[in-house]
């Protein structure tokens, strides 16, 4: 699924990375807990989160996440946006809540990271 399709499905606003919409995403994971993201996140995932501090972007960078979607209309803080630009991580904001945002993506064919683990 491309970032463009994700943006459309989630009616998301692009905060950074408007020129990256053609990029493909293969897996996604949603969590507000960065400990979980660090423990279970996989390279290349789309991270959905409601955590808006700079740690959300730092964590995404550390695990090689491809892009971040902030749920429930949230947006990262200034430090987070600055880091996303530096690390070239596209970031989006959707008005949908976590469950709905994940459900929309999953039901349109974007699998979760657990699928990667199961297929190992």
């Amino acid at each position, binding site marked *: 699924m491309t970032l463009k399709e994700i943006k459309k499905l989630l009616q998301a606003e692009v905060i950074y990375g408007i020129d990256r919409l053609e990029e493909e995403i293969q897996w996604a994971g949603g969590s507000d807990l960065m400990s*979980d993201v*660090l423990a279970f996140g996989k390279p290349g995932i789309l991270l959905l989160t409601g955590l808006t*501090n700079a740690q959300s972007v*730092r964590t995404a960078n*550390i695990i090689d996440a491809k892009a971040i979607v902030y749920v429930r209309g949230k947006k990262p803080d200034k*430090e987070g946006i600055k880091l996303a630009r530096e690390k070239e991580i596209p970031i989006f904001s959707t008005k949908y809540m976590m469950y709905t945002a994940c459900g929309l993506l999953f039901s349109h064919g974007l699998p979760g990271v657990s699928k990667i683990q199961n297929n190992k």
Partner: protein
Amino acid sequence: MSTENGLSKRFEITGGDFGKAGSISTKIKEILQEIGINSTIIRRTAIATYEAEMNVVMYAKKADLTLHLTPAEISIRVYDEGPGIENIEMAMQEGFSTATDEMREMGFGAGLGLPNIKKNADRFEISSTPGKGTALDITIYLNQEGKK
């Protein structure tokens, strides 16, 4: 920074500085990327370092973090001044945590840090003196043949 035996770089982590938490791991990732280390190894190193850095920020007063790179391995040593860990065996269990609400608001403190460091390291040693501090030695081999 460079020595005959490889590259060494020292960083200082300040306890309680949640704003900067993770910036040293981000820097170490950049250094390893510039050198051209394999991306999976960089990712494992970055995750282990990030967890260690967060532990210092959350629990300790300050720490020295040393990155040492040789042709054979990456070593990360984190020696902190802090409360130490009373029961290392318990701290190594997933889900065990003494985190505060502030730590959890930052998205951390789920009791996954130390187990996750161990998971990402090829060799992991931890020692602690309650009331003084904790020492972590994390090693990741550059040649992964026959390793995890």
